[in-house]
């Protein structure tokens, strides 16, 4: 037995190592509801610990390299590369003047955009809190397009925060460590971002292909989609705020798996291969000035008062409609909103009951012609005056207590009115 282990020691060790790693792999995958196998997007504590150790080993040298690169670059810029400084200064000055003009125009556009945005949707967020970060390393594998930032949990980063540059979106934070963070780039095959084409308004999901190019997948073939069209974030993925630039359409190719669908290859706006400094969107709360905040609060308060007033008017009209069902003519046009009284209180609309045409041959059944017992109030059967039939807005309970045969029982009905019964021959006394 001993000779067996001695003879096959290498193979046995190889098998043991392979089996251990295969078991470890099996623990990291799971079967989705659709029956497909996928990697668990949230690492287990053990896996996360291994990643933390690896990151802790690699990050310090990467930071050192980054610092030395910055230091050398600074030395070069400050002391060595001083040639043609005067010409550069002159050019830069003219550039600054031009940029100032452009900035003023853009500022005005931005203000107008803010006002329009506030009018259309008050809760829409379009200014965000960002945290600048430096890219310090990559995964080192072209099958995993992730990179590392020099900021981590201690700096306020969290999972699923959007990472952008001034040019466009870059990726999302996939994992955070105390002093660094792992970012999944948008050109990775497992990434996903909701995007929209600016002109055709076609929505789709952006993810990377095998060549590391971002592409929009799952789009029905559309002739209108042409190279050069801008691609923006759609904002539905709860990671990237909407409207951020993604890139431009580079070309449209057929989906190899589905005939009716196309893949839109996107040329990313951000240079994903050469990232240096990026911004992490840490919060999507708007950053308004104190004056703007005050204006917004005032506007919100006014909006609340108007809404309460409208609700009160609506309630009053509903009560009236409930108590005067016969007065509602279904063929009548929609009721006008309640008018405001002199004291500001809502006043129900005044409704006039049409006059009853007096019969040509009245008898004792005719309202108003019945013989009245002595002491009885004639008002119960007397034809009402037009002014009395006007429904007083402030006295609805009286209408409710009206006796049968009172004028309110003769209100015009939507149905065709019944013919009055034929007159009964009166016996002579």
């Amino acid at each position, binding site marked *: 037995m001993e000779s067996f282990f001695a003879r096959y*020691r*290498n193979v046995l*060790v*190889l098998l043991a*190592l*392979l089996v251990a*790693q*295969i078991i*470890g*792999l099996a623990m*990291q*995958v799971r079967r989705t509801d659709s029956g*497909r*196998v*996928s*990697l668990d997007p949230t690492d287990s504590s053990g*896996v996360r610990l*291994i*990643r933390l*150790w*690896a*990151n802790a*080993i*690699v990050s310090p*040298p*990467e930071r050192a*390299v980054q610092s030395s690169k910055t230091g050398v670059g600074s030395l070069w810029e400050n002391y060595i590369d001083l040639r043609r400084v005067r010409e550069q200064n002159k050019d830069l000055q003219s550039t600054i003047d031009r940029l100032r003009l452009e900035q003023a125009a853009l500022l005005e556009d931005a203000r107008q955009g803010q006002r329009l945005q506030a009018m259309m949707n008050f809760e829409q967020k379009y200014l965000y809190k960002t945290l600048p970060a430096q*890219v310090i*390393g*990559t*995964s*080192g*594998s*072209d*099958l*995993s397009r*992730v*990179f*590392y930032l020099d900021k981590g949990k201690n700096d306020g980063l969290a999972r699923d925060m959007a990472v952008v540059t001034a040019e466009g979106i870059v990726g999302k934070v*996939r*994992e955070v460590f105390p002093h660094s963070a*792992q970012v*999944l780039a948008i050109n*990775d*095959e*497992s990434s996903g971002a909701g995007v929209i084409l600016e002109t055709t308004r076609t929505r789709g999901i952006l993810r990377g*292909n*095998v*060549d*590391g190019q971002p592409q929009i997948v799952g789009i029905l073939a559309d002739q209108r989609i042409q190279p050069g069209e801008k691609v923006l974030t759609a904002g539905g993925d709860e990671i990237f705020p909407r409207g951020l630039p993604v890139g431009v359409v580079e070309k449209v190719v057929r989906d190899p798996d589905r005939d009716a669908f196309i893949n839109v290859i996107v040329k990313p706006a951000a240079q994903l*291969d*050469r*990232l240096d400094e990026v911004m992490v969107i840490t919060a999507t709360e708007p950053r308004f000035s104190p004056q703007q905040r005050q204006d917004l609060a005032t506007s919100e308060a006014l909006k609340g008062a108007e809404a309460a007033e409208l609700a009160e008017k609506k309630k009053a009209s509903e009560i009236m409609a409930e108590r005067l069902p016969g007065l509602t003519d279904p063929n009548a046009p929609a009721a006008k909103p309640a008018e405001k009284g002199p004291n500001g209180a809502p006043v129900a609309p005044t409704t006039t009951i049409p006059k009853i045409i007096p019969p040509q041959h009245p008898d004792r059944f005719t309202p108003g012609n019945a013989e009245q017992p002595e002491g009885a109030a004639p008002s119960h059967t007397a034809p009402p005056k037009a002014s009395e039939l006007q429904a007083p807005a402030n006295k609805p309970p009286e209408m409710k207590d009206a006796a049968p045969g009172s004028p309110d029982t003769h209100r015009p009905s939507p149905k065709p009115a019944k013919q009055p019964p034929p007159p009964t021959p009166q016996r002579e006394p």
Partner: protein
Amino acid sequence: MLLTANSRRDLDIHRYPAPLYVIAPTVALVLQALLPRFMGRFAYFDLPLIVTIYFALGRRSPIQGMFMGGFLGLFEDALTHRAIGINGIAKTIAGYLAASVGIRIDVQNTAIRLMLNFVLSLLCTAIDFFINRVLLGLDLHWNWLNMLFQAIGNSAIALVVFPLLDRFQQRD
């Protein structure tokens, strides 16, 4: 005189200073994580694999080669967002094969080194593909041209790295 496998192994085992076993893999890992930043899509190399092959060939110990390959592979996996173990398995096998081959052939020959790196690079890629598609059942796309470029790049870099590491070899 005809040398048997064991006698050749005893004669040709290379020895290195102990810190080199730590420093060389660490430098390889750091450079592997750092250089793609500057080279972008053209980072067709796998420095940890080159270091694994070098030490497996030099030490001619399959067990040492397996452990070094497994450790470096797991470390590489930990820096990605993929499952930990894919590179580990591939480089474990690469370390074992390199050491096993190193017992039987002359590892100082440049052509053999070039060929070994090329073949083992392709083998690692094939194992990676096999694990992803067959073992894990993941729907992952591959570009074999990139893999070929990586194998060529590894071979070219090994031509520089191997003589560099040879300088640290301890001779009796």
